């Protein structure tokens, strides 16, 4: 997948993964569709970036005698998801156009 596009998709996927309830690193990696090939080394800078942009909040909580970081979406993050979804019609249009080249 083209890098810039993948970045946008991954961002949207991660925001989705922390939208309904807070989540943590490993669970986000498991939740995001496998075709994205999300790994910890991709997730780590992505979470940093999203936190810096104010799209998610982070808190540490104890779990089984150790600390685990939980991430949750903010209103800014929700807005970004909306923006991503709003782009779908134009993505579809582009897809149809490119697909037309096959015939």
């Amino acid at each position, binding site marked *: 997948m083209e890098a810039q596009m993948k970045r946008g998709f991954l961002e949207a996927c991660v925001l989705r993964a922390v939208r309904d309830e807070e989540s*943590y*690193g*490993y*669970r986000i*990696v498991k939740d995001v569709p496998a075709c994205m090939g999300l*790994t*910890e*080394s*991709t997730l*780590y*800078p992505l979470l*940093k*970036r999203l936190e810096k942009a104010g799209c998610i909040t982070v808190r540490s909580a104890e779990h*089984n005698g*150790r*600390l*685990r*970081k939980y991430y949750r979406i903010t209103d800014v993050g929700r807005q970004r998801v909306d923006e991503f979804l709003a782009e779908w019609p134009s993505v579809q249009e582009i897809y149809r156009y490119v697909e037309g080249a096959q015939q």
Partner: protein
Amino acid sequence: MTRDEFLAQLGELLSCLPENQAQDARRFYDEAIADRMEDGMSEEEAVAAVGTPEEAAAAALEELPAVPRAVAKTRRRSSALLWVLVILGSPVWLSLLVAFVCVALSVYLCIWALVGCAWAVALALGAGGAAALAFVAAGIGIGNVPFALAMAGSGLALVGMALLAGAGAWALTRAFARISALWAQKALSPFKKLEVDDKTTGEAHRPPRIHLAIAGVLIVLGVGLAAVGFAASGFDAGVFSVQLDAQTGAAVLGGVQLDHPLGIFPLS
């Protein structure tokens, strides 16, 4: 690889980062490994599943600007190698750097010289205007009305042009100051992460352009007066001329030789 080995290697690879950032990355991978082990993987499998320490370190460094990242990556191999490269390469990079800085500096100075020229033009026009206005008094003093009119007219027109030129020079100065700030930001960007602030420079809070209106009025008025003076002199271009000889003390104002110039001007 055990969890401790993974974390120790990661810590070493991230030693170029501030301690709290390196620690943050270690905790993140520690948590990821612990969660996988809780999920039923063996320690070995869990460590293998989060990737290699090199990948993890590269990802953590990804957000750094270009130069610190390059330094960190070279240092990862060996700090001795970095210094050998820096020293061996110095004849090349040092001279290139000096040349580049010199070119950048001279381009920059040229631009400001241009701005300086604009100010010099404005200043010269203003000084010319002031001198012409001073000769109005002399013209009245010797009773040479066309000369006085011509001087008053050209003085006003010159002051008006000086105002226009000054406004232009001021606008140039501001524009280049803004561009300079942008360039400085660009020049620093490989070293430092900058917050991009898209401050739209305000078309809204432009100062009122009253000085331009004044300048226009002055020029029109001045040209009108000068034309009257020119006509009054019988269309003699000499009416605009001033000749002062500091050595003999002779003065010719508007084509009329003065008998007693010392009474009007304290010439030596």
